[in-house]
């Protein structure tokens, strides 16, 4: 029997969907090995996040609400999460493989003497954790040999869990993280302002490459607007300053699997494919027919993106009236 503690992800006081993708993994784990799961909500003024999690069948929603936890400082969050796991007897701690999860969870693992498996995409029949390695060219099945286990979950590999009704009790965690965080000071956050859906949650993504140059926004934004899509980018486009870092899709950026993915002027390097090749439908628009992106695309259009994308935008707009 296991007790699984799920680190909830939230932003500006609202629950993020990746938490429910992570929950889907936790439910699979509990179904296979037996036991129950609880949520951990860390932050400041996060009451609404806790409330939003009450209907998902957890034994409890533990809330560590503290001014010093307002930003996810890894040393502080890692300690509070580990202390909570110990106090409730959780032997498995899971969280999304977001930048916060990647930053915090290893520190929790050390405090619990736990091995950690990163970026899990499946629980295998034999109970191993499947995870992409070598940019997803191979899948590694890994076992954690310690009694306590820490796991980060690739959100795009699990469908968001549904609510089950009921009302899990909310339990306050007495947390004093001040000591753990005292050698780290939050300075500032420079957020990407966007009214578009989050890349991790979008059903449709319009991604652009370096070839769009300073017309990156002019090409991708109208198409994204008409489709209600999120915008992504190749690493090269971000490196050259045509798109913010938050847009980067790939092995070392965001990993996405939307219903529909437009790769516009993206060559399809192995590192980019690692971040999007599990999309349901892939459309590639590129003027060079030899680019590797066409080897994974369901629909390829060999054309100049500066001409084809505005035309595509206009036609979809006309369809949608």
């Amino acid at each position, binding site marked *: 029997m296991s007790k699984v503690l799920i680190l909830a992800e939230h*932003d500006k006081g609202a629950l993020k969907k990746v938490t429910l993708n992570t929950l889907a993994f936790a439910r699979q784990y509990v179904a296979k090995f037996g036991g129950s799961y609880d949520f951990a909500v860390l932050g400041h003024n996060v009451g609404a996040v806790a409330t939003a999690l009450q209907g998902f069948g957890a034994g409890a929603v533990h809330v560590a609400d503290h001014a010093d936890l307002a*930003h996810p400082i890894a*040393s502080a969050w890692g300690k509070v999460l580990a202390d909570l796991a110990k106090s409730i007897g959780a032997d498995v701690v899971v969280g999304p493989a977001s*930048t916060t999860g990647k*930053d*915090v969870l*290893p520190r929790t*693992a*050390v*405090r619990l003497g736990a*091995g*950690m498996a*990163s*970026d899990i995409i499946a629980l295998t029949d034999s109970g*191993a954790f499947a*995870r*992409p*390695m*070598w940019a997803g060219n*191979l*899948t590694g*099945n*890994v*076992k*954690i*040999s*310690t009694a306590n286990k820490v796991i980060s979950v690739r959100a795009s590999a699990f469908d968001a869990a549904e609510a089950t009704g009921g009302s899990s009790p909310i339990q306050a965690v007495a947390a004093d993280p001040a000591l753990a965080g005292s*050698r*780290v*000071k*939050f*300075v500032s*956050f*420079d957020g*990407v302002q966007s009214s578009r859906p989050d890349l*991790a949650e979008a059903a449709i993504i319009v991604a652009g490459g370096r070839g769009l140059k300073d017309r990156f926004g002019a090409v991708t934004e109208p198409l994204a607007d008409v489709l209600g899509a999120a915008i992504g980018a190749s*690493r090269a486009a*971000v490196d050259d300053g045509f798109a*913010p*870092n*938050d847009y980067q899709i790939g*092995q*070392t950026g965001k990993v996405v699997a939307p219903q*529909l993915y437009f790769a516009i002027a993206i060559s399809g390097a192995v*590192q980019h494919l690692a971040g999007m*090749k599990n999309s*349901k*439908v*892939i459309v590639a628009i590129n003027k060079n027919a030899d680019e590797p992106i066409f*080897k994974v*695309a*369901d*629909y*390829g*259009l060999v054309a100049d993106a500066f001409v*084809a994308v505005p035309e*595509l935008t206009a*036609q*979809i707009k006309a*369809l949608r009236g």
Partner: protein
Amino acid sequence: MKILVSAKRVSDPNAKLAIAKDGKWIEGDVEYILNPFCENAIEAALQIAEANDGTETVAIGIGDDETARFIRQGALARGIDRGILVSAEEETIDSDLIARIYAGVVHRESPDIVLLGKQAIDGDSNQVGQLLAEYLGWPQATFASKIEVADGKAIVTREVDGGLETLEVTLPAVITADLRLNEPRFASLAGIMKAKKKPFDELEIDDLDLDDTGTKVQVVGLTTPSGRKAGVIVKDVEELVQKLRSEARAI
């Protein structure tokens, strides 16, 4: 000031990988490169050293003679002052043991900053810097795209979901490098010649007084994921829209 920096070799990301007979790792005869994120960490260490007189830089790698070659050519030839190789079988160690080996070296060397790549592009775990920081009880700043060091502190801008976060960490600290931190320099011919004569220590894991040299995570099998097949090439935008609508039902 002293900076310890990682130099890990990884298989060339464009190489065709074959799974070894035991199914647990890849076959040996592939081309290797220095982990790209380690190149950024090395460049950052050199830039900090250039801006702060009297800074010593030390590169560390775990592996065999081949790894030693990467420490010399990838780090010392670029300007890192000296190298340390810890002998170990790369295939069988996990992130946790790597972090404990690094911690053992930190206890011998007492650096002010440990600069690592944010992840190795073979295992893709993205754990070692964070694990090391916790083992040492140090602050961390992962995924760095900008580092300023002054007065015993580092101001680090981090690439995180949703934008850029800036933290101030009091040294000693662990910093992990993201790709936009800098443009790694090339080694000069003079640098390559000098690297051959730079101090180089070879250590065994036993030299590091670790309480435990076991691993916590084991690869039990590798598989090749089912690939995607190329679809169709459409002749124009109109056909694309029609297929997306009636065939894929995606718009």
